[in-house]
C-alpha cells in the first residue's frame, strides 16, 4: 500500500463559466487520483478573491500538506502565502497565472496557461483572414490576466491594417457584454470583427448582433473552449468560425503531474507551457465534451 | 447691567412667518427678574413660536429680542444656554437610545482630562431628579420610560442648569397634580433665588396659582399683559377665546342602572398591572385616576389588545376578546387614543388627511381603491367637528401646533365611530375653549349610547366628566368612586395609598 499523502488544491470560486470549468476538472481529477493512489487525499478548495485565497492556502496548510496545486485568482498578492507553504517543504505547483517573481523559490512546478498566446492567436487569425478589418474589443475585468491577453492581441495584429475601433470592459459577463455590444453597434456604423476573448461574453455579443439585424459583422472571436462555442465551430456557424482554446482542464494536468511527483517520484519540476490552440471546424470534435458544465 | 425695571428678556415688535404664513404679529413681551410670567392663548396662537424665538431656536422675521435691555441675536440650537436661557420644549427632545444621565448632559458633558466623568454626571442627575421627587432610574434608557417620566427628565435637565431664564412650554401637560406640586415648589425656590420663568400652560388653575403676570395671545396677536392678581380664570379664558365661556363641563348624565354592560374586564394582569376588574355600561363615562406610572396606560393597552396579558378576560358586549389582538378589539367597536401622540399617534412627516384616515381606510375605498374625494370630505368634517386649525391645509402634521395635533389625533380615533372608547389624556395640550368642545363631544357620545373611559391626570376633568372613577396605584385598582364621592380629596387619598378599598 502507498503511504498517505495529502494534496491541497486551491482554485478560484466558480463564479464564471471558465472558473466553473476549473472546479469541474479539479474535482474530476481529484477523484481519479484518489482512485489510483489509495493513500491519496486530495482536498479541493475554492476562493472568491486573492485575500481569501491566501487564507484558504493557510487553512490547507494547517491540515498538513504534502503538495499544493494552486490556480491563483490574482498571482502577485499570493506570493507570500505560497512561499510560506513552499518554505515548509511542501511541493508547490502553480497553474495558469504566474506571479512576477516565478522561480524555484516560489514553486516546484508551473503549468502555464498562456494568456498572452490566447490574445496572440486571436490576433493572428484576424490578421490572416481579414487584414483590413475594423475590430471592436470587449475586455474582461481590469486585472493582469486581461492585460496579458490584450498585449498578446496587439502583438498578433502587428504589421497588419487591422484597426481597433474601441476597447471596453464586459466583465466576463454575458449581460454586460450584451450592453457593450449594443452600444458598439450604435457607435460604429461598420464593424468587421469582434474580439471578446471569452466564450461567456460571446453569448451576449451574438445576441446583440442578432437583435440589431446588422450584417456587416463578419465574425466573432471568443476564447476558452466552452462546449457551446466549440459546438458552434463544429457546426460551421459563420459567426463563430474558430475558438481559441484556454482549457480549464489545465488544472487537472497540473494535479496529475503533482501526483506523479509525490507518489511516483517522477521528476516533474520546471515549467510546462500549454498552447493556446486554435479550434477550427476540422479539429473541433477533439475538444468537445458535452458532459462538462462549461 | 440690568434694566431699571429689572427686565431680563424681552421681545419687541416680534413678527414671524413660516413660508409666507404669518403666525406672530408684532408681539411685545417682557420678563422681569425673579418672576413667573405665564403665556396663554388658544392652540396655534403662537406661544411655542414666541418662546422658541426667545430662546434662539427660531429667528424673528422682524422685531427684536432684548437681553438685559440690549438687542441681541440669540445663537441657534440651544447655544443660548450659554447666555443663561434654557427651554423645555413642548414636545420631547430626548434621544431614545441614550440613558437618563446621558440625556441630561448631552452636549455639555463633564469631562476630566478629556475623559467623561460618568460618576459625577450620574450623581448630578440623581440629585436633580431627587429634587423633583422623581423616581426615575438615572441609568434607565429613555426608550423604556413612560411619557411622564420623560417629562420629568426634561424638567430636571432644565432646572439643573443654573439658568437665569427658564422657559417651560406646557411642562405639566402629562403630569399629575402631585408631580405638578413638586415642580411648583422647585420653581418657587429658584424664583426666590432670582431665576425668571416663562410658563406656557393651558391649565388655568396652575397659571393662577403660580404666575405673577400673564400675557395672552390670540391668533398671533398680543392681547393683554396683566398681573395675575388682577385676573380670574374666567377672565383669562374670555381673553383667550374672545368670547364668554360658560361652564367648562356639560351636565353629567348618569346611565340607567340596568343599562347593559358593554365592557367587562375580569382579573386582568400584565407584567405591571395586577388583577384589574371593572365594568363599563352603555352611555357611561368612567374615569381612571392615579399618579404617574400607576399603570393606567398599561391597563388600557392590555384591554384593547396592544399588550399581551398574563391572565384575565376582556369581554366586549359579552364576547371574550383574544389577548394581544388589536384587530379583534377594533372589530368589536373599541378604540384607543394614545397619550404619546408623537411616537405612537401621528405620522409626523405626513399630511393631515393621511393621518386622519389611517385606521379607517376601508371606509374610503371602493372596490379596493381609495377615493380621495371621500377622504377629503372626512377631513373637512373632522376639521369642523374638532376645530382643527392649520393655516396651511397641506402642512405636515409635525409642524402643526401641539393642540391641533391632539385634535387631529382625537379625530383620527373617532373616524371609525367606535362605541367603546378608551381615551388616554384627551385634552393634553388643548386650550380651554376647545377643551369645552371636546368635553361636550365626549358627553354627546355617551348620551348617544357609547361607553367612554377617560384616563386623565387632570383631576377636574375626571371629576367634571365622569360618573364613575377608578383610582390606580402601583398597578392595582385601589378604589372605585361613584356619584358624590368623586372629589379631589377622595381620589388623592386612594392615589397616594392613604386609603384602599376593602
Amino acid at each position, binding site marked *: 500500500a502507498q503511504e498517505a499523502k495529502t494534496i491541497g488544491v486551491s482554485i478560484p470560486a466558480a463564479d464564471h463559466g471558465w472558473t466553473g470549468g476549473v472546479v469541474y476538472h479539479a474535482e474530476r481529477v481529484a477523484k481519479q487520483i484518489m482512485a489510483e493512489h489509495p493513500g491519496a487525499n486530495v482536498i479541493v478548495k475554492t476562493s472568491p478573491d486573492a485575500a481569501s485565497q491566501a487564507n484558504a492556502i493557510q487553512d490547507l496548510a494547517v491540515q498538513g500538506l504534502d503538495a499544493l496545486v494552486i490556480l491563483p485568482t490574482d498571482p502577485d498578492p499570493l506570493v507570500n502565502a505560497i512561499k510560506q507553504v513552499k518554505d515548509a517543504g511542501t511541493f508547490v505547483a502553480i497553474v495558469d497565472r504566474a506571479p512576477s517573481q516565478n522561480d524555484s523559490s516560489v514553486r516546484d512546478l508551473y503549468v502555464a496557461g498562456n494568456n498572452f498566446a490566447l490574445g496572440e492567436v486571436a490576433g493572428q487569425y484576424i490578421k490572416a483572414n481579414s487584414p483590413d478589418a475594423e475590430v471592436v474589443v470587449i475586455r474582461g475585468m481590469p486585472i493582469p490576466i486581461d492585460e496579458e491577453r490584450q498585449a498578446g492581441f496587439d502583438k498578433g495584429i502587428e504589421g497588419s491594417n487591422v484597426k481597433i475601433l474601441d476597447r471596453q470592459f464586459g466583465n466576463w459577463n454575458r449581460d454586460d457584454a450584451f450592453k457593450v455590444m449594443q452600444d458598439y453597434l450604435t457607435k460604429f456604423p461598420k464593424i468587421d470583427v469582434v474580439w471578446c476573448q471569452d466564450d*461567456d461574453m460571446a453569448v451576449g455579443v451574438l445576441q446583440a448582433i442578432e437583435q440589431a439585424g446588422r450584417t456587416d459583422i463578419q465574425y466573432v472571436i471568443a476564447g476558452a473552449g466552452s462546449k457551446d462555442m466549440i459546438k458552434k465551430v463544429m457546426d460551421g456557424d459563420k459567426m463563430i468560425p474558430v475558438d481559441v482554446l484556454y482549457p480549464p482542464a489545465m488544472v487537472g494536468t497540473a494535479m496529475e503531474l503533482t501526483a506523479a511527483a509525490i507518489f511516483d517520484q517522477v521528476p516533474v519540476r520546471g515549467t510546462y507551457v500549454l498552447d493556446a490552440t486554435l479550434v477550427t471546424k476540422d479539429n473541433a470534435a477533439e475538444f468537445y465534451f458535452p458532459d462538462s458544465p462549461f | 447691567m440690568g434694566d431699571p425695571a429689572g427686565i431680563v428678556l424681552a421681545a419687541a415688535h416680534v413678527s414671524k412667518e413660516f413660508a409666507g404664513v404669518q403666525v406672530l404679529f408684532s408681539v411685545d413681551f417682557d420678563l422681569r427678574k425673579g418672576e413667573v410670567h405665564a403665556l396663554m392663548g388658544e392652540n396655534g396662537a403662537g406661544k411655542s413660536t414666541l418662546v422658541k424665538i426667545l430662546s434662539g431656536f427660531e429667528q424673528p422675521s422682524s422685531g427684536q429680542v432684548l437681553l438685559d435691555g440690549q438687542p441681541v441675536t440669540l445663537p441657534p440650537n440651544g447655544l443660548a444656554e450659554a447666555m443663561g436661557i434654557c427651554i423645555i420644549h413642548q414636545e420631547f427632545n430626548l434621544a431614545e437610545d441614550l440613558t437618563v444621565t446621558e440625556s441630561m448632559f448631552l452636549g455639555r458633558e463633564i469631562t476630566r482630562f478629556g475623559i467623561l466623568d460618568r460618576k459625577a454626571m450620574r450623581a448630578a442627575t440623581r440629585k436633580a431628579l431627587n429634587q423633583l421627587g422623581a423616581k426615575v432610574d438615572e441609568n434607565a434608557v429613555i426608550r423604556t420610560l413612560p411619557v411622564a417620566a420623560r417629562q420629568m427628565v426634561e424638567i430636571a435637565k432644565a432646572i439643573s442648569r443654573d439658568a437665569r431664564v427658564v422657559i417651560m412650554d406646557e411642562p405639566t401637560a402629562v403630569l399629575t397634580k402631585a408631580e405638578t406640586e413638586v415642580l411648583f415648589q422647585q420653581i418657587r425656590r429658584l424664583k426666590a433665588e432670582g431665576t425668571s420663568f416663562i410658563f406656557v400652560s393651558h391649565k388655568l388653575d396652575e397659571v393662577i396659582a403660580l404666575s405673577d403676570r400673564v400675557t395672552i395671545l390670540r391668533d398671533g396677536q398680543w392681547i393683554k399683559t396683566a398681573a395675575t392678581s388682577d385676573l380670574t380664570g374666567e377672565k383669562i379664558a374670555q381673553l383667550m377665546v374672545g368670547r364668554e365661556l360658560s361652564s367648562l363641563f356639560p351636565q353629567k348624565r348618569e346611565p340607567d342602572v340596568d343599562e347593559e354592560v358593554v365592557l367587562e374586564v375580569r382579573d386582568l394582569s400584565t407584567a405591571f398591572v395586577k388583577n384589574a376588574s371593572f365594568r363599563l355600561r352603555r352611555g357611561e363615562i368612567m374615569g381612571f385616576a392615579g399618579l404617574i406610572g400607576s399603570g393606567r396606560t398599561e391597563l388600557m393597552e392590555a384591554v384593547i389588545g396592544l399588550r399581551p396579558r398574563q391572565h384575565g378576560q376582556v369581554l366586549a358586549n359579552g364576547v371574550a376578546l383574544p389577548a394581544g389582538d388589536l384587530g379583534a378589539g377594533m372589530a368589536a367597536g373599541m378604540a384607543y387614543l394614545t397619550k404619546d401622540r408623537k411616537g405612537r399617534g401621528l405620522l*409626523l412627516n405626513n399630511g393631515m388627511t393621511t393621518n386622519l384616515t389611517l385606521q379607517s381606510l376601508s371606509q374610503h375605498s371602493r372596490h379596493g381603491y381609495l377615493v380621495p374625494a371621500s377622504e377629503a370630505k372626512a377631513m373637512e368634517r373632522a376639521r369642523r367637528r374638532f376645530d382643527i386649525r392649520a393655516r396651511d391645509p397641506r402642512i405636515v402634521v409635525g409642524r402643526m401646533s401641539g393642540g391641533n395635533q391632539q385634535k387631529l389625533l382625537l379625530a383620527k380615533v373617532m373616524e371609525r365611530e367606535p362605541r367603546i372608547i378608551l381615551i388616554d389624556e384627551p385634552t393634553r395640550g388643548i386650550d380651554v375653549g376647545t377643551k369645552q368642545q371636546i368635553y361636550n363631544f365626549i358627553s354627546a357620545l355617551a348620551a348617544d349610547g357609547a361607553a367612554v373611559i377617560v384616563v386623565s391626570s387632570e383631576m377636574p376633568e375626571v371629576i367634571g366628566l365622569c360618573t364613575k372613577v377608578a383610582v390606580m396605584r402601583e398597578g392595582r385598582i385601589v378604589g372605585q368612586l361613584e356619584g358624590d364621592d368623586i372629589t379631589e380629596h377622595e381620589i388623592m387619598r386612594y392615589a397616594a395609598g392613604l386609603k384602599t378599598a376593602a
Partner: protein
Amino acid sequence: MAIEDTTPRRSLLGDMDLRAVAPFVALALLLLLGAVANPNFISLANLENVATRSAFIAIIAVGATFVISSGDLDLSVGSMLAFTASLMIMFLNAAPIADPFLLLLAAMVLAVLIGMACGLANGLITTLGKIEPFIATLGTMGIYRGLTTWLSQGGAITLESREIQDLYRPAYFGSILGVPAPIAVTVLLSLAAAFVLYRTSYGRHVVAVGSNREVARYSSIKVDRVRTAAFVIQGLCVAIAVLLYVPRLGSTSATTGMMWELQAITAVVVGGTALKGGYGRVWGSVCGALILELVGNIMLLSNFISEYLIGALQGAIIIIAMLVQRSLARRV
C-alpha cells in the same frame, strides 16, 4: 423634529408633483449631455435600446420601492433573479409537458411562484426573525446565489430547445403596438404599482409602516404582514424580470444578476424614494433605472474617456445626479 415635507397629493400618474420632478430633470440633463457626446446617442434606436435594457433594473426597482418605502431593504434581488431564472430554464429543459406552449406557460407560472416564495422567505426571516433586513437579505443573497452555482455546477444553465426559444423570443425582442415588449411591461407594471402604492389601503399602510412602525401598530395595521407583503411584491417583480430575462440570453450562470441589487437600490434612491422609509415614488424609481443605464451608455458612446476611468466617472455622475436632484428638490 425631523420633519420633511412629504407632499400628500399624488395623482395616479404617480408622484408627478413639483418636487418629484427633480429626477426627471436630472434625466433630461443627462440626455442633453449624451446628445453632446455623440450624435448617434439621440437616435431613436439607441434610446430604445437603452430604455429596453433598463427594463430589468426598472422592474426590480419598482418592487424595491415597496420594500424601501416600508423601511426595509432587499439585497438578495440579483441572486434571486439568477436562482429563479435557473429553475425556470431547468424546468423548460426537463420538459415535463409535451405541448411547448403549455410548457412555457407552466414555466412562467412556476417562475412567478418561485419569485414570490423567495420574497416570502426574505420577509419572514426579516419580520419573524427580527433580523435587520440588510443582514437577513445578505444571508439569503448568499443562499440563492449558492444554490444557483450548485444547480449549474459552476457552469451555465442554457435553454436547450430551439422550439421553446423561438416561441419565447418575442417576450423580450417583440413589441406591442410598436413599443418594445420590455418597455411595455415596465410601463404597465409601474402603472399597477403606482396604483397599489398611492390608491389602495395597502399602499397607505406601506408608507405608514415605513414612516413610523409604532404609529402603524397603534393604528391597528398588521406591521409584519405589510412588510412581508412588500417583500413578496419584490419577489413578484423579480419574477417578472426573469420572464423577460430568460428569452433574452436563454441562459444563466453563477454571475447572472450580480450587483443588480445595488443598481436597483441606487435607482430607487436616485428616483427620490427615501432609504429610511415612509415615502415611495414608483415612477421616480423607473426614472432612476433609466438614468443609471444612460450613464453607462453615454460613457461607451463618448470617445474621450479611458476605459479604465469609466467606473470612476459613473460614481461621480451618480453623486452629481443626486446633488442636482437635491438642489432642485430644495428649490421647488
